[in-house]
């Protein structure tokens, strides 16, 4: 197996174009497991660990935060928790301290598992992914268009993920996940919610609830249309919102849980997170964890 270790983004893109058989590796917390379990036998590894451009973040002129694909969960939690609270909450639930030190959002997007914890908050916040190839340059892919199927994403064979872009939270954001263990657990299902009070709009993201992470569009539209943003949350509205979130899921029965339980739990999480966010909103609190 060849081991490619580019030291700049340019080199990385060139290597990607030259060696479509090389598997990118960032933190390796997915890749190494696959290699150990013999699920994958790539001809080469393209190690992105030395690519400096991926390792940091910046604020763009319009205020959007641009976060390199190689930023670990641990750094994201401490460095960006105030601006990206939903994602930071999700990051806090990933694996163990060791995994959070190595694992990255870029890797989560690369793996595109329906259970990946970064996806729901990115969907809810309306993040955009920046992918790039040497031949065609940069493409900006909205989160909701990125997930193509179970563990498949919209990345071309010559493309790499450079960063994700997300506006700092404009209102309360929450992430909730279900696991039968109190830590280190793959989501049985998960839900993320972001309120945009100025726009009178809500964003949602569902995890482990369908072949891909997805948004609950009807629930979002319902809330935008029916909620009274200047009043306390109406019970009936919250209940209907929860139902619509449940209905947006197409879960399966598997060894981690039943489809019925997943639907039920998503409804509970939707109602609870909406309630928390609404309370924050009414209290005038902005972002909150």
């Amino acid at each position, binding site marked *: 197996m060849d081991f490619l270790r580019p030291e700049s983004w340019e080199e990385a893109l060139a290597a990607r174009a030259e060696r479509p058989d090389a598997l990118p590796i960032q933190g390796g917390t997915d890749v190494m497991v696959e290699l150990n379990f013999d699920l994958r036998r790539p001809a080469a590894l393209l190690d992105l660990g030395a690519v400096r451009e991926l390792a940091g973040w910046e604020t763009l002129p319009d205020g959007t935060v641009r976060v390199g694909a190689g930023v670990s969960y641990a750094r994201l939690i401490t460095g960006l928790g105030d601006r990206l609270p939903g994602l930071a*909450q999700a990051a806090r*639930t990933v694996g163990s301290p060791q995994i959070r030190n190595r694992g990255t959002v870029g890797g989560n997007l690369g793996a595109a598992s329906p259970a990946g914890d970064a996806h729901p908050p990115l969907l809810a916040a309306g993040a955009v992914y920046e992918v790039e190839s040497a031949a065609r340059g940069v493409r900006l892919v909205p989160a909701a268009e990125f997930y193509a199927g179970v563990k498949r994403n919209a990345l071309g064979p010559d493309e790499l993920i450079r960063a994700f872009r997300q506006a700092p939270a404009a209102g309360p954001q929450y992430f909730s996940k*279900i696991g039968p263990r109190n830590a280190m657990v793959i989501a049985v299902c998960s839900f993320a919610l972001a309120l945009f009070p100025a726009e009178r709009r809500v964003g949602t993201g569902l995890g482990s609830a369908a072949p891909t992470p997805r948004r609950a569009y009807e629930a979002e539209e319902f809330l935008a249309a029916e909620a009274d943003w200047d009043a306390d949350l109406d019970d009936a509205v919250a209940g209907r919102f929860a139902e619509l979130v449940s209905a947006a899921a197409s879960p399966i029965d598997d*060894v981690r849980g039943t489809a*019925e339980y997943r639907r039920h739990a998503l409804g509970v999480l939707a109602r609870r997170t909406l309630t928390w966010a609404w309370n924050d909103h009414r209290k005038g609190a902005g972002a909150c964890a």
Partner: protein
Amino acid sequence: MTTTRAPGDVAAPGRGGVGDSALRPDGTLKVTGEFAYASDLWIDGTLFGATLRSPYARARIRAIDLGPALAVPGVEAVLTHEDVPGRRLYGLDHADQPVLAIGEVRHQGEPVALVAADHPETARRAMERIAIDWEVLEPITDARAVVADPDRLRVQERGGIVRHQPVRVGDVASARARAEVVVSGDFSVGIQDQAFLGPESGLAVPAEDGGVDLFVATQWLWGDLRQIAPCLGLPEDKVRMTLAGVGGAFGGREDLSMQIHAGMLALRTGRPVRIVYNRYESFFGHVHRHPAQMRYEYGATRDGRIVYATAEIVLDGGAYTSSTPNVVANAASLGLGPYEIPNLEIDAYGVYTNNPPCGAMRGFGAVQACFAYESMMDRLGAACGLGPVEIRRINAAGQGSKLATGQVIDSPAPLAEMLTRLEAMPLPPPPDRTDLRNLPGGVSQATHGEGVVRGVGYGVGLKNICFSEGFDDYSTARVRLEVAAGEPTVVVHTAAAEVGQGLVTLQAQIARTELGVDRVTVAPADDRIGDAGSSSASRQSYMTGGAVRAACAAVRDEVLALARTRLGAGDDLSLAGGKVVSASAGAVATIADVLGDRTVEHTREYHHRPTVPMDPVTGQGDTHVQLALCVHRAVVDVDVELGLVKVVELAAVQDVGKIMNRLSLEGQIHGGSAQGLGLALMEEIVVQDGLVRNPSFTDYLIPTILDTPPQRLEILERPDPRAPYGLRGAGEPPTLSSTPAIVAAVRAATGRPLNRVPIRPEDLCRRCS
């Protein structure tokens, strides 16, 4: 030998005698990653062994073509059952398990062929090239159906039932007519795995005399040897066993895994062979805890006194006998727990199926029944209007009580008092909701407190200590005292396996106390000394502790006799602080002076009292050596809308006779309780049509530190006069009682019946099941 890391280093424990919290010599090494586990062994020229396993639960092998595998460059051997040099079957008590499948496979993961190659990758490629023509058959997977029709549903020639053990006392029919309150229930227990962290591994080195040296992680060197030698076609003295670093066991290393396989490959190739399973293979490489289906009925007077009980317990042993007969005996003899019940009928069955093979695991047959009988006690209490502690106290057995087998408990068993002490312990405060880690789901943030209900539950467990039913599981110890660098030095040598429980530490503590010497080393366990029995059944402190103490006493007697002859001292001598001490005259000489350059060495066997098998019809008999009790109170917070559980606290009272090492002991109770928590809430090998669906730690969940609550312990010391130092085996009892206590607490919070463990979230919330 040029191994860079061999188990030859003599362990050198720290300070402390019996009763001190001596530190483990292996503790720091394990925490810093320097401890040499069996998987770290290495010798130049080693080949890598690999095992081809059945993908099917039940199938015939029409043909195997090894040619393409043998043709892979770097492959040194490819073996099947035809290459087994000796007996082709092995087993703990009953040899019915093929070393390699003979014409058919009876469970998923059954070994079919072996490869030795110069690189693990080569071995893997060769395995892919072994072509097998399978005829897949429908597996037999319903244990209850096997009990009903054992002649038709045969996995083994001998029929479907491994053992049926009835227990009969009194007259259940007339007691039933008198009973004022009757409760019943069906309960089941899923397959729990030992989930030890160090997968099966070891090294086999061929020797010049045609024999083989095996370095393996096991619970019982001599038990392994007796099974390995006949299969390798070698006399026992040509198979030399040394214990390699064991990464946990919990019963899962009582059966053989890679031992014979590595030996075969080493003998065939004439080169050292190393086999190391990965986590996936490990799930197929050892037996698990028997899953159980149980049906209970209790009758009582209105004031809660039990007048009769019936129980049917069906344990699924999988395809081979392993330790199922003994697991059945425990389920039968301990099937109603430590309660006085005048009339009873128990039927415990162990059956063969094509499900994953099951055998020994911490608690050994007593765990499954404990979940059922404790659930019944709560049910009965509720029916009589009595609380969980009250109903247990009313029926509690004690010293002088009879077990279901008629055996009289002849040493302290203060159950009622233990319950009273447990109940008196303070309850934890409500959760601090400002920290998500205190709530069900933890930082997954499923709740900020919504839907969270607290529950409290109790559980009691009764476990036999040492092997039962007539087994003479003695232990042997050799103790040598000599002067080295001017200081008296003791070497203790046994074949007893340190599996993480702290036995090495304890052996040194005993030697220090008995011989008054600080410098004690424990030689690596091997078979150059007689049998020590298995590190299971909570028996090593008792048995190997007893043997070390006896050998020390023999050494001490000789030293004191020497002192008397040399110094003309009186009869009131003892050894302390490196000196010979006279009760009347104080220190009279140093041990070093008395010994000079003489070496004093003695070997002793230690036997427990004899027991008898259960009567095949009535189940009666004095079958157990010693009995041990633990009681638990669990406090849980349950998110009743989502079915998520946070165990807030586990409190326990356990009687251990004598605290040999409090630090180790508390570790055993903490760990045992956590393993019981795992069974209550998450640990299950999920099987469908005989196939395992979750053979990984991604989906076989064991408790993390955030699942494991603070544990309040009260440890009693009521000595057993028959046992060394009065001690009572302690490793298993907490594993029994924590499971039903937690389930009872979750029932209290949710009102759900919960007849099955592990509990799944969907079992708990009302709207989702």
